[in-house]
């Protein structure tokens, strides 16, 4: 029973990460790609962490995985924010410069 649940989480996690990657490749400009990446991948990572902690069963490992997810969340939001600011600043300078 637990394994079936874990498998379900794992598959949905992989689906979201796959969706994020397709989004990054298909979407037109930087901002949409950032959306796709940060949103889908973080959710996918959460689902995979949940499935792993279900498979493992120990609470300590579940908390560790949660900490990993929080760190990944923090890192991806800040880097997405910086990339967005940087490309907007460059477009602004190219816009009036060009």
């Amino acid at each position: 029973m637990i394994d079936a649940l874990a498998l379900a989480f794992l598959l949905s996690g992989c689906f979201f990460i796959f969706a994020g990657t397709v989004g990054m490749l298909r979407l037109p400009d930087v901002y949409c790609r950032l959306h796709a990446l940060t949103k889908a991948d973080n959710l996918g990572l959460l689902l995979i962490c949940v499935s792993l902690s279900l498979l493992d069963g120990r609470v300590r490992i579940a908390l560790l995985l949660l900490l990993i997810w929080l760190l990944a969340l923090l890192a991806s939001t800040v880097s997405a924010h910086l990339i967005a600011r940087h490309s907007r600043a460059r477009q602004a300078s190219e816009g009036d410069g060009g």
Partner: protein
Amino acid sequence: MSAQLIVDVLLGLILVGLAAQVAIGQHLFRAIVFYVAFGLAMAVIWARLGAPDLALADAAIGAGLTGALMMVAFRRLVEIDPKQAQAQGTRSSTLAVLIGVLAAGMVATIGLTALTLEHQPGHAGLQVMAALDDTGLGNPITGVLLVFRGFDTLIEMTVLLTAFVGSRVMTNRSRLYVATIAGFQLPLVRTLVAVILPLAALIAMHLLWIGSDQPGGAFQAGSVLAGAGVLLLLTGTLLPASKSRALVRLALVAGVASLCALVLAPMLRGEVAMAYLGRGSLLFAEALMMVSIATSLTLLFAGRPSLKLGRS
């Protein structure tokens, strides 16, 4: 069994694909970014092969710090002369391809024939496992690194010190490129630093403490601290300073000095050089090694002999 094989082949293909991008890719900056990805893929393969210490070290040092050092060096090239910084792409010539294939073939035959040698496990490895329990250590790799072959580690720390002193020969004269990027003064980034800094210190201490029994140790802990140092430099909380300070020099020398103490102290008591002095002495040496590794790698990133607090 075949499922595991498929996973291995997939991992291998990912690694070779990333390596191809690094070696043949047209643009230098992309090659560096792919090298960082290559380092992380390498860490996954170390984990797959059952070598967690190497996975930690390769992720922290191989991917993280080497990537950071290369990006800041690239940034300095662009600062000096943007057009020339990566002027030449790669000119793939058939001769180069031929030599590359030849080298790959040579290494493949060497590796595969070595695999077919009658595989008695190295008795050095067996002796390590046997002698491990009377050192009271759980992690055999820390046992090899600090007890059985501790002198290699001493010289390796000296190599790291030499790299820093050697880079001082160059950075004495060159104009400094301040590593902080304007966009990094944002409130969001400051909260990132406020959260990550204590966490990095905690993780480093944890890695140091469990190093004698589980995967971890001075190198991994030192590189995590160095990563935090790089973050502080990027966000301007720490700034490179040209006046070299005694405290910083002491931190640089501490690692090698502590290992020298491990070698010379037993001799004063009449025992043989580097006789094992118990777990406490290892922890003392590893703590100082962690400080030395973090300081020298952070200063190598900054390109200056010491650091000073930023104005924020």
